[in-house]
């Protein structure tokens, strides 16, 4: 217990770094995943092929390899993911703007990887919407994107909440890999710091680290349950 209370500050800062990573990566993955899903169900064959290729390649690659590719591959070709130095956002998430690129790389890796799963969760939801709904939308003269935005996705959302939640929870746990790929001071890397450098006993440290992840995932799970229940009523 002393290990936990005595290092509360270290755990808290690690938690905060991890929280930033998963928040940014979740937004990124949802946006990119929606785009890929739109491609996979688009009426244009080349877009469909591109979307399918993305999912096939990324979903079937181990996350560790994706991290390797970003953390070591991107610098090789002179990319430091500088496009993530988004003004205003980088004053809120200060690590976005630093010269050490690994925080940005972690977000890129998690976004790219998770987007494939977001795409498939969304697509499952879209397929659960009766085809007549989109036929009716098309008959009214809605364009493909209008039909998706106004008719299909709002209804797909209901069938998507739970699988999408599982994808995000998996991503939060996957974010532990970031510490192994150069992100200093995230929740998982904190354990290394406390056990190896300070010589603290491993079990209490890892209990503290696990608690940090549970603080992120358990409330998210509960929130999803509530959303699911509230939508079951309106159906």
């Amino acid at each position, binding site marked *: 217990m002393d290990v936990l209370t005595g290092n509360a500050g270290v755990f808290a800062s690690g938690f905060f770094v991890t929280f930033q990573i998963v928040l940014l990566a979740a937004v990124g993955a949802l946006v990119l995943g929606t785009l890929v899903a739109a491609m996979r169900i688009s009426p244009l064959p080349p877009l469909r092929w591109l979307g399918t290729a993305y999912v096939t390649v990324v979903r079937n690659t181990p996350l560790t390899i994706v991290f390797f590719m970003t953390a070591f591959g991107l610098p090789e070709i002179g990319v430091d993911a500088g496009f993530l130095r988004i003004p205003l956002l980088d004053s809120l998430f200060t690590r976005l703007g630093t010269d050490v690129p690994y925080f940005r790389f972690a977000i890129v890796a998690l976004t790219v990887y998770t987007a494939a799963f977001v795409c498939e969760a969304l697509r499952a939801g879209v397929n659960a919407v009766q085809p*007549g*709904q989109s*036929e*009716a939308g098309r*008959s*009214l003269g809605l364009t493909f994107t209008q039909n998706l935005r106004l008719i299909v996705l709002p209804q797909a959302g209901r069938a998507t909440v739970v699988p999408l939640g599982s994808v995000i929870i998996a991503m939060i746990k996957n974010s532990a890999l970031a510490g192994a790929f150069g992100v200093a001071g995230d929740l998982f890397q904190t354990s290394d710091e406390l056990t190896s450098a300070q010589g603290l006993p491993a079990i209490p440290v890892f209990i503290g680290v696990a608690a940090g992840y549970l603080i992120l995932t358990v409330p998210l799970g509960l929130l999803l349950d509530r959303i699911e229940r509230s939508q079951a009523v309106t159906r």
Partner: protein
Amino acid sequence: MAERAGEPPAAGAGAAAGAGAAADTEPAGAPLVVLRGVNKHFGDLHVLRDINLEIARGEVVVVIGPSGSGKSTLCRAINRLEPIEDGEITVDGEPLPEEGRALARLRADVGMVFQSFNLFAHKTILQNVTLGPVKVRKVPAAEARSEAMDLLERVGIASQAGKLPAQLSGGQQQRAAIARALAMRPKVMLFDEPTSALDPEMVQEVLDVMISLARDGMTMVVVTHEMGFARRAANRVVFMADGQIVEQAAPESFFTAPSSDRAKDFLSKILTH
């Protein structure tokens, strides 16, 4: 069902509330919908064989035939819900575009009513009717709402405007679907077996709306098994079998003296019971 002939057709046209008033003022002119040499396969099945059909402005064409004859596919091909492989379809002189915005624009002018209603399940009846005008025609919301309420009044379900589709009976849902299509002020309305999914006691309320539309001069293509409707409201009956148009004639002569054996056989099966 076949017994209700006698009423004067199209006599009370002025009585019903008028929306498609412009349609019946220009009688002949170019046909509104033209299908020329249309072919389509589903795998090995040749569902549309060399279809040629012209539909004039204000004309009501009823398409009948045994199931699997291609009549629904024909109806759905007219707004390209079913793409065709071969041949040409034009609506108001314009060939159907392949995909994209041009196709969406053309579809806005072609109303479609489905067998299974297909009202947007997550929107209220009123929202179902205003969605097209607001999002496609860019009609201001307040104007769209008041026009939608007029249409719902006309089909007799104004009191249900705030409800979700699932809360309505099948007949009410189908009337709402007709109002939704009418809200786009279409040039032509397609009905794909509009009463086939309804409980028997709700069929007539939907047919009544369609009959009043026909009398107002709306151009209509109706795939149906309702021979009573065909007799009362149609200008022409098109009989399809095995993906072909076998015979077409005015309803009276088709029902009393069909010329093809296929039609005689079909009519004997449905009119005897």
